[in-house]
């Protein structure tokens, strides 16, 4: 089936206070990419029957940034993917709030959000999955994975499931960890400097989300936002 796809890229200060409201009509699809380093941003997406949305955001800051995504699955067969990366450096604060609302039956959603905090940075992920009483045969997945790179950095993750239907497939997971020292050791044993090994590992963590961006210049722009020094 041919789908009509709308592609939107929201950048920097240009996102304004509100990333906007998007209604995706039956059978159509939306791809939304957002990359910002400052301010608070709200995005609202509603999906009609069989509509699809692929949402991917990158937030990286040494100041303060917050994202608030609400996705309403309003028609049977609607599907939403939400991919996100947030990074807080120096004394920066990055907050992400997501609200995935399964209002009707037979919809699918998948949220994969990763966070990194360095120096004295603070990151927060709050992710809600709501499944209405009639929303049978819902499939909803959510994963929050985070790494803290320094002793003073912090990340909090608060996944939340509110499920009122009984025939659903839902799973969620959340982890906050440090760099994996076994991996660093392995790479150094092959001759990589400790710094290169750490960079490669962090790059790998981020890449698992960035790989979802097919547009190469856009992906590189996101990488630059995440590693501003290079």
């Amino acid at each position, binding site marked *: 089936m041919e789908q009509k796809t709308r592609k939107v890229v929201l950048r920097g200060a240009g996102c304004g206070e509100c990333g906007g409201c998007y209604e995706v009509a039956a059978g159509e699809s939306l791809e939304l990419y957002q990359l910002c380093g400052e301010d608070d941003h709200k995005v609202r997406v509603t999906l009609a029957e069989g509509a699809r949305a692929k949402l991917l955001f990158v937030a990286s800051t040494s100041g303060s940034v917050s994202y608030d995504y609400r996705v309403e699955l309003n028609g049977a067969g609607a599907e939403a993917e939400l991919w996100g990366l947030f990074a807080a450096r120096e004394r920066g604060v990055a907050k992400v709030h997501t609200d995935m609302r399964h209002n009707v039956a037979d919809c699918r959603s998948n949220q994969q959000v990763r966070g990194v905090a360095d120096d004295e940075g603070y990151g927060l992920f709050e992710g809600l999955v709501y499944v209405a009483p009639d929303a049978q045969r819902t499939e909803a997945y959510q994963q929050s994975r985070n790494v803290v790179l320094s002793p003073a950095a912090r990340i909090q993750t608060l996944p939340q499931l509110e499920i009122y239907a009984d025939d659903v497939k839902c799973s969620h997971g959340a982890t906050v960890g440090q760099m994996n020292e076994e991996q660093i050791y392995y*790479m*150094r044993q*092959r*001759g*990589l400097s400790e710094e290169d090994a750490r960079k490669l590992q962090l790059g*790998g963590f981020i890449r698992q989300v960035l790989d979802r961006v097919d547009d190469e210049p856009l992906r590189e722009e996101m990488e630059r936002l995440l590693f501003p020094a290079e």
Partner: protein
Amino acid sequence: MLKVKNLHASVDGKEILRGIDFEVKAGEVHAIMGPNGSGKSTFASVLAGNEKFEVTAGEVEYEGENLLEMSIEERARKGIFLGFQYPVEIPGVSMANFMKLAVAERRKAQGLEPLTAGQMLKYMREKAAVVELDAKLMNRAVNEGFSGGEKKKNEIFQMAMLEPRLSLLDETDSGLDIDALRIVATGVNRLRSESNATVLITHYQRLLDYIVPDFVHVLYKGRIIYSGGKELALKLEKEGYDWLINDYKE
């Protein structure tokens, strides 16, 4: 090439290596055997520079230099290669990218020109063929989702890529079926030369049918308690370690 004298090492205050003496010359193959938990992997890790272990006494000389003063990566760049008993998975880091960086470091240390992208690709294909490793694995993340056998072959592939002078292979034969064992052993044999040396840590004589060692050592409770020729491995396989351990107790 390598001279270990009275090496002691501990982890979390617990002494694991309790006075190891060990010497390897260029061109030699040594096998280290010994019961579980005797300190074989620890010995290899200490030689590789794993910071988890603390060296509390002893000396290690590698190519005339003090090995214990070198960082993990310096040792690697100078040609020490450790084939891990449990190779580590690194999600998100592709084999190709990882090998590109590792080979660049090794070549720099050898005073060789860096390889162009095209040369690197060809080199990687060539070496993957040595251990019959599917070249498609180069596009995957390091060891992620590799089968047990593929992980072990991948260690020997990396060894082939890095052309080490001293290879420490920690149970590279464990978990391999007969064909894979033959492939891995052939790979190791092809990399053997007069100027490099290999230390095989193993529980099984069958590996030593393929890679014939010059010396076999028994490590027990953190010490090398017995050394002999290749026939020692056969005797150990038949009789176990009891006769030695009892001897050692007396």
